């Protein structure tokens, strides 16, 4: 879920917060920086038919931007991540902490400090 309105605690890694295809695209963009559509399908090994709609969604949700390039009469998209992996991690963490505080108030904050003491 690009909008982070659904979190699946039991899923692994990024798929807790994103769909598997979204997660694969974001991971690829974080490691490569700029990528064309065909580089993305090559790197993630997911066919274009599944990737195309997800790319539109990621752009709309503001996780990636894309620009159009014309090279030798061929038109192509070049994708770029909007947030770095660190920035995305901090955005997600803030959102989740906010929702915990909203749900449990001071109890949540108390547990945060216990958690950081333990670490």
């Amino acid at each position, binding site marked *: 879920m690009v909008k982070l309105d659904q979190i699946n605690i039991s899923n692994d890694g990024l798929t807790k917060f994103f769909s598997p295809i979204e997660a694969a695209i974001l991971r690829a963009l974080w490691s490569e920086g700029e990528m064309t*559509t*065909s580089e993305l399908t090559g790197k993630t090994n997911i066919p*274009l*038919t599944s*990737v*195309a*709609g997800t*790319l*539109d969604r990621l752009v709309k949700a503001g996780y990636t931007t*894309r620009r*159009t390039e*014309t090279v030798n*009469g*061929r*038109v*192509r*998209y070049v994708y770029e991540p909007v947030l770095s992996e660190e920035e995305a991690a901090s955005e997600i963490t803030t959102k989740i902490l906010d929702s915990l505080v909203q749900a449990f108030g001071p109890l949540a904050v108390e547990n945060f400090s216990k958690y950081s003491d333990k670490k």
Partner: protein
Amino acid sequence: MNIFGEITCYGQCLRSWAPIVAFIVIISLTSVAASLMLKNPKKRLQTFAFAQVSGLTGVALTYYLMNCSEMLSMYLFFAYVAISTILIFGTLLYYDRLMIKRLEAKPAGSILKWTQEYVDKLTSARVYYFDSAIPKAFAAGRSIFISIGLLEILDDDELKAVLAHESWHIRHNSRMPFLSRLALMAFSSSSEPELEEQADRFAAKVAGSAALFSARNKIDKVFI
């Protein structure tokens, strides 16, 4: 008698039926408004058809229930016919312009000059591109729409086949009577298989069947 007098008389004549007629009129107006806001063209036309039916029911009901002034019923009826006709024909005439606005489409000639030149040879239509990674092409009114996703995956020959296919639709559309086009827009979700076949035959003749075949293989069939 002025119009307010007519309305008062109208309310009196309808007596206990007045709230029901008013209710039907409100439903009709709400669904017209809703149909203008809906994004899905099929749903929009269904809502519009519903508005038409409820509007007509309201007019018919007042006509039968009226037992004094019949003039207001006539005014209402003529106003209704005028407004709905303008809306129906307007939607049909400006459908492509609505799509251009909604998709924020831009002339395809500005990124690939030859696409517009190629279509100019086949029919009179404008070619537009829009921002989407999903490979998609369609014709509406006198405009052809292609997504950037389509430009990414097709080579020039395949793109020519797709443009020829859509050009055929435009040639065919412009020969089709107004009402059949309306019926097609309202009642068929995707195009008729028979029309698609004819469009493909034309595309194969103009751009070669090999190009058409490989374009078809690259794009999900529902998209063109």
